[in-house]
């Protein structure tokens, strides 16, 4: 048997650099239903996976790093099962923040001694060509049980961190080993309200894009997850969406929002041509006609989680805020004609268009509604195109 383990360790080269995650335009959709030990697991894995890694100075945890972003901040009732236990007192974590992400809050959860804890934490943020900035934080004991305390460290004063890396160095000799519950950005999964009330609207959490060749030039397809509410319930807070637009548009393009029937499980994917009935694949056809097309997912359930029209319109507006004015708008460089925003509905969502128009946050123009038994034909598609091009008035 080879006994060259020391050699193996020595040969390993410490080259840092988190690899970009593999993706596809359906990952944001299916991540919402995956669970990894918590209802937030799949969504957080899509959002955080590949960006969180252990620093070389850390001790090794006795579990996978994904436990740091599984939606479970830890529980004193189940200390050894809910906290990630490190080999010794030091846990050092790096979290890469992409250029397009604007992080307003960083929180860290741990298990500590209830009295006279010797735990120490340091947080800083560094961009590649700038000195690191210290992130101040507040320590708060969430719960005590016997000699144990569940502790939250919440960064304070951070504002729109982007294009760099958050470094969290935690040392806790209380029990010999560090017990870490979770690293939480922007209160996702923790139900924290917007950290910066001056920036309401939404937060872009996940963004991948592809250029898809077409007959009239390439169309760029973006897959997104945005935080559109802060209730602590995944289905309420996170909104998957897709935006498609011609890559080489000479002028701002009109935008049409396609609303799938609520209750058709993969209805949004059908509209994109990524599942099911090809006749309903309107998004690629409209993108080829020169429009930007936005598809926003609704929550289908269970039970009272299903979106009402009002909840869906709020989700839609928050996503649109991201498309027109948020981080996405600042980084994607998509020129959208704000005076021509159409909304098309299907099945049971006719009320969405009416409500959106009545709220008048955007100059919505109702460009059509199809029933589920209708087989989409040329006339209906032409009507959408004509109305967006201003050849007919809205309804």
């Amino acid at each position, binding site marked *: *048997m080879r006994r*060259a*383990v020391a050699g193996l*360790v020595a*040969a*390993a*080269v*410490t*080259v840092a650099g988190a*690899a970009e*995650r*593999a*993706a*596809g*335009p*359906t*990952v944001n959709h*299916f*991540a919402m*239903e*995956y669970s990894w030990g918590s209802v937030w697991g*799949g969504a957080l894995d*899509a959002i955080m*996976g590949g960006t969180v*890694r252990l*620093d*070389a100075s*850390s001790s*090794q945890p*006795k*579990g*996978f*790093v*994904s436990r740091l972003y599984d939606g479970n901040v830890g529980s004193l009732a189940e200390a050894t099962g809910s906290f990630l236990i490190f*080999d010794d007192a030091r846990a050092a974590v790096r979290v890469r923040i992409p250029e397009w992400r604007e992080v307003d809050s960083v929180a860290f959860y741990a298990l500590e*001694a209830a009295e006279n804890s010797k735990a120490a934490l340091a947080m800083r943020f560094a961009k590649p060509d700038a000195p690191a900035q210290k992130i101040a934080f507040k320590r708060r004991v969430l719960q005590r*049980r*016997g*000699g144990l305390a569940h502790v939250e460290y919440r960064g304070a004063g951070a504002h729109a961190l982007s294009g760099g890396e958050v470094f969290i160095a935690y040392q806790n000799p209380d*029990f010999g*080993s560090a017990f870490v519950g979770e690293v939480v950005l922007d209160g996702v999964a923790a139900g924290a309200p917007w950290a910066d009330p001056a920036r309401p609207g939404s937060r872009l959490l996940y963004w991948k894009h*592809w250029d898809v060749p077409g*007959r009239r030039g390439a*169309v760029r397809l973006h897959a997104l997850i945005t935080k559109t509410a802060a209730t602590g319930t995944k289905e309420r807070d996170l909104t998957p969406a897709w935006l498609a637009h011609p890559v080489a548009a000479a002028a701002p393009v009109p935008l049409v929002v396609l609303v799938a029937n609520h209750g058709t499980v993969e209805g949004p994917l059908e509209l*994109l*041509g990524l*599942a*099911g*009935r*090809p*006749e*309903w694949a309107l998004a690629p*056809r409209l*993108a*080829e006609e020169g429009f930007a097309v936005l598809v926003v997912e609704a929550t289908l359930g269970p039970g009272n989680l299903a979106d009402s029209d009002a909840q869906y319109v709020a989700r839609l507006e928050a996503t649109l805020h991201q498309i027109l004015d948020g981080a996405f708008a600042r980084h994607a460089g998509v020129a959208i004609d704000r005076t021509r925003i159409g909304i098309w509905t299907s099945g049971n969502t006719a009320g969405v268009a009416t409500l959106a128009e009545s709220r008048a946050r955007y100059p919505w123009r109702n460009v059509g509604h199809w029933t589920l038994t209708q*087989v*989409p034909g*040329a006339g209906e*598609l*032409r009507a959408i195109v004509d109305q967006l091009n201003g050849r007919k008035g809205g309804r």
Partner: protein
Amino acid sequence: MTRFAWACALVCAAAPAAALDFASVDAYENHNAFLDARQAPVLRLLVGSHLSLAQESARPLASLQRLYDANPGNLEAVPASFLEFAAPRAVLALRIAAWREVRTVALTALEDANAAGTLSLRHVARGGAATAIATSRRVVERRGDAMLVEYAAAPAAALAAGTLRIDYRAPGQQPARLGELIVDDIGRDRGGKRSAPIRTIDDWMREDGAAVCPRVRVAAGKVAAGAPSRELLTVLLPKVNAGYETRLAEWKTVRDPQRRLVTHAFVLKVDDTGHPLIDYVRAWLVVPIAARRGLPLVILPHQGHLYAAQEPMGVQGETELALAGELALQGVASLAYDAAPFGTPRGAFVSDYLTYYPASGSTAKDLDNLARLLDRVLDKRLQALAGVKLDPKRIGIWGFSYGSWVSMLYGAMDDRISAIGFSSFHYRDADIVPGLTASLYIPQLACVADPARPPISVRRILREYGRDAFVVAPDIGLLEDWVRGLDDARVTVVANPFGHVVSMQERAAVLGFFYRSFGVRAKPALDGPAHVLATKRSEIAPYVERENLWRTELVKARTP
């Protein structure tokens, strides 16, 4: 231009290759189609995505999806199960890709008992040459004046790349009413399953053990005491549906310039039960974007949970297990696939499987799937499709947890594997029978249980490999058990001090093992803390001491 012609210009067969298709950048469509574990979404992928309406056709009054929904038509529910057209003529175009192996085509229709429709099949090859294909008509069912009929064709040879034009005319002036387009029998329900589900090994012993065990015992009894493990494994893990010829049912190539790799997503049809999770294997061959010839290959079976299928590619799941991207960067191809036993988030596998194959467990199916997959990946035609040439002498396998079980066994059974790695197989030899029968992975093991002579022994298998192997045990006791009597410089066994987990250190060691075994000049990156991979108890001792410390301190802190 009529309204319909305008729509058809967008969606019909005239220029399907040029139409904007968002699915062309989705490498996981083959995974998503199986999440429901139902035929209909699978058929959307395997048939629907290749089917379109021809311009001459009458307009359908509902979605074309009715033609590939696994419902051939039901005479008791005509409106919901047949697709009605606005006129007698329905013309479809089935695009046949170069990789496709279409050998049979069938179309069902609703017809009046007093008059027959006609079906004309014409194959138009890429070069434009058209060939008529003869069809036969049979009445499947009759109810009053209504008949469910099936038109079928079985060309002498598989149809070449091109288009199959399916031109149906209903009798007289009746509108065409079509039930299902059945390509290569995909979606046909074969029946034959039993009603009682098997959920525990006790169920299995009660329902099947009496019939299966005597045969297994006789076959096992013929294996000599000192024979290699492979001989007994062949008895316990018989070939599944050996007479069924593997078919390539779907193929898509997605380039990822940012990660400098290409993912070939495909589906193999490996069985013919009518159950989508049994009949198909979904797989991904990941290759470097540049290097294309003489590539080594590492098979990456997935760990044991139902979300893990795409983990090796780094789509969802543990970053530590995402090896495909890094291997590609070093010029090594990799092969990931959906392991059968875990089913899907919306569909079970094991109990369903045993209703079709009572005499073998899910591991037999998984290993059979893997053998078929490797056969295909090493086939020159598939490599030509992928534009790569693999080196058949440099094939490796590595898996974690359930993936370790598959890797260990497959390495023992297939000599094409030249480098075998597995991490965190956590059963001692004596525990393998109770552990792996309880999970129904190999229920037949219960037939030959013998505490004195475990039928499957990791220790014995390691001594029999005779090839490069890198084994990571999840505790030092297992390591000591496995290396006793092991004297083969090609086999390395180490222990991870942290148990059932893969650290970045271990990940780097696994990559390093394959690079050395394949002669790849690369050093694996260690993106995280370093730690020892132990070969003796004394190296583990400090880790154990620290573990004892926090356990003691935690108990103290919990005590009032």
